């Protein structure tokens, strides 16, 4: 027997609740349109909400994102579906799309949960915390992270032992293991694709030893260590908990690298590495920070000054791509590179290495579109039909692209792109003929 599907109506559907999707939704909602945000994760806010600070202003990322996120959550014209997947989108006609959406069970009654964390305390299961990029653990009954929105508990059913401890501990009786996935059919007039990007998986670069050497981290892990909601309250290297004093950054780890299948520049790694280096200089005043680069691309407003500032603060910049990382004594690491300025091969010892991992396309949105094809560019980013004149236009009329779904970009550019998508969607919705 087929389950009954719930039918809803909106003016626009935004796929992805990161900063770009949120901004597009907010702009549309402020114009009076009813918007639904479909987010696959447990919280909206995307990757930006996980970051420490933003370049080049060094504003606290969480402090910018959280007010925005709560504005989105409280907006009368915005409906948010978290832990939900878009199964299909079919264009029925001019300004009419029909989407099928599945909302996965959270096993917590959202309306009743107060976010008290009693279930978290009671849960006996500990697994790696994906929201802290595996630096620490979390429970199977958990609140995703302290500034999550909605800030309510969820049960990680794959790791749950169904012991019932959380059910007993919950003061509002909101845990419900009988919840089932709900199917929705949604009629909308336009679609904004804001599916963001994926991070390059450094396990693919074997010679950098990520996953093999504990003190080789990704930049996102370092970002977590520097964030206000950081796990350790200081910077620690994973192998022995030592406070590192010689930290290396390996730029272009998985970007501008044909041999890794990603020949283009990720546009953000130089700048976030410089930002992290400055933050580290603040957090660990005695530490030596070295950034190994191919080229420093500080192209935005105030970026080059930011780079000069890092040099002034004492961050070393060495031109040369790291060839190999090998294990040294006591968890230290040896980096082999050619110092391109002198043409000599050198080996440097560092006690912690940060791989500045690149950006890859997230093409999950492509198979959702059934009646018309959502075209992508050769690197699987959503193709902009007219990138100069109308940057949000895709191959399907009425479907717009917002943020890094169309290519690597930093936060200011993402917000600009989100604004463009919202205004182009508005124009589409308002159009008379």
């Amino acid at each position, binding site marked *: 027997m087929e389950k009954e599907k719930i039918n809803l109506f909106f003016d626009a559907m935004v796929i992805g609740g990161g900063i770009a999707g949120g901004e597009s939704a907010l702009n549309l909602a402020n114009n009076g349109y009813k918007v639904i945000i479909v987010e696959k994760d447990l919280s909206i806010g995307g990757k930006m909400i996980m970051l420490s600070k933003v370049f080049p202003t060094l504003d606290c990322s969480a402090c910018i994102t959280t007010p925005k996120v709560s504005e989105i959550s409280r907006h009368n014209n915005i409906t948010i579906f978290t832990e939900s997947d878009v199964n299909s989108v079919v264009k029925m006609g001019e300004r009419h799309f029909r989407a099928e959406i599945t909302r996965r069970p959270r096993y917590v009654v959202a309306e009743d949960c107060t976010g008290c964390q009693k279930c978290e305390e009671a849960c006996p299961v500990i697994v790696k915390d994906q929201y802290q990029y595996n630096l620490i653990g979390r429970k199977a009954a958990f609140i995703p992270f302290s500034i999550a929105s909605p800030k309510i508990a969820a049960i990680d059913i794959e790791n749950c032992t169904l012991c019932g401890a959380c059910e007993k501990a919950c003061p509002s009786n909101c845990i419900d293991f009988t919840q089932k996935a709900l199917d929705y059919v949604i009629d909308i007039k336009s679609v904004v694709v804001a599916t963001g990007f994926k991070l390059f998986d450094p396990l693919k670069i074997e010679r950098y030893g990520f996953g093999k050497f504990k003190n080789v981290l990704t930049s996102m892990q370092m970002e977590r260590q520097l964030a206000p909601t950081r796990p350790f309250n200081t910077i620690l290297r994973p192998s022995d908990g030592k406070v590192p004093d010689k930290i290396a950054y390996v730029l272009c780890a998985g970007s501008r690298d044909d041999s890794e299948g990603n020949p283009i520049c990720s546009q953000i790694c130089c700048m976030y590495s410089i930002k992290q280096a400055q933050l580290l200089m603040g957090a660990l005043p005695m530490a030596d920070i070295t950034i190994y680069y191919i080229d420093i691309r500080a192209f935005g407003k105030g970026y080059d000054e930011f780079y000069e500032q890092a040099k002034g603060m004492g961050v070393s910049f060495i031109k040369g791509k790291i060839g*190999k990382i090998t294990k040294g004594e006591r968890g230290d690491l040896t980096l082999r590179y050619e110092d391109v300025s002198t*043409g000599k091969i050198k080996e440097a010892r560092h006690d912690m290495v940060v791989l500045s991992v690149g950006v890859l396309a997230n093409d999950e949105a492509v198979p959702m579109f059934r009646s018309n094809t959502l075209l992508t560019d050769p690197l699987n980013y959503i193709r902009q039909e007219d990138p100069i004149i109308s940057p949000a236009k895709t191959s399907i009329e009425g479907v717009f692209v917002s943020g890094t779904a169309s290519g690597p970009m930093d936060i200011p550019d993402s917000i600009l792109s989100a604004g463009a998508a919202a205004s182009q969607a508005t124009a589409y919705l308002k159009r008379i003929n």
Partner: protein
Amino acid sequence: MAKIDRKFSKELKKYGAFDFTSCYNCGNCTAVCSLATKDEAFPRELVRLSALGVKEEIESSLKPWSCYYCGECSSLCPQSADPGELMMSLRRWLTARYDWTGLSGLLYKSVPVLVGAMLLMVAAVILFANYKQFNVKEIMHFGHLFEMYAIATVFLLILLPNILRMWYLTVIRPGKNPPFTKYFKSAGVLFLHMFTQKRTLGCDDNQRRWFEHFILVIGYLTLLMMTVLLGWMGTENIFVIVAGYLVSAIVFIVTADFVKERIKAKKELNRHSRLKKLSRHSRPSDWLFVIWLFLMGLTAFAVRLFVDLDIINNNLWIYLIHLTVLVQWALIIVPFGKWTHFMYRSFSMYFQSLITENNKGS
């Protein structure tokens, strides 16, 4: 002051180099190279020099000979600039540069010339056989003499002057005059590398390749000695006959396996990235070397077998094939082809040790 020569990269591409001008100088190739050392960094430096076309510096560099084409630089190159193939092309270009006759360059760059030269040798052998009225004894006698004279002539007229040119370009012209006694002190290096090619061992996981290489060098030299000095083809000495069979068999069996391994390695490399265009870079003249070595071993083996079975008189063709292979080998491949790389590599190590010891002394 060195001058930039934009035409040089075009010239080099005729020798097989492909996309090296796309290099963005990250130094990854040098950093991953298992043969490059703190004192001798390559291949990026050579990529840069080639892109700029600074011929004089390239001519005086011994680094191309230090590269054994492990292939890591190419498979890990972020720009698919194929630095390994560039080094190979530089070796071909240098071979042409050292060669005073200019024939090496011509044979490398032009397939028709190469094929023409090979066919010319075939024609010469047939004409000669015709002139001798297909007399087996006389032809075989001539073949034996030919080997001796050819070796001596090629060595005196081509190889020796070319080595001297290499010496001039890499040691004398750059002004690194090592003291006279060093030439004797370093001689050991020359022979060590000539016979063992032990640098190949530096390439990761390459023991097998090195071992086969070693067997081939020894096998080839022994076969040469057997036929030239001991007259294996015509001897009655049972010991020499058996040893000759053994050596020639080793030569063609090991060569066949060597080629098989190289093709496999190349495939491996191609799978790595979009360097699929790679295999087309192998110059015909490079393949000639191994194929002819294989043919030499095989035909020599067959000829002696025919002699022992006493059917050579009715089957002169087998000896004519052998003679053709031999003539092509001695007059084209040895003086102008890849055979010389083996020689230049050893001399490169020798010159290198002259220069470095000199530097230490001063």
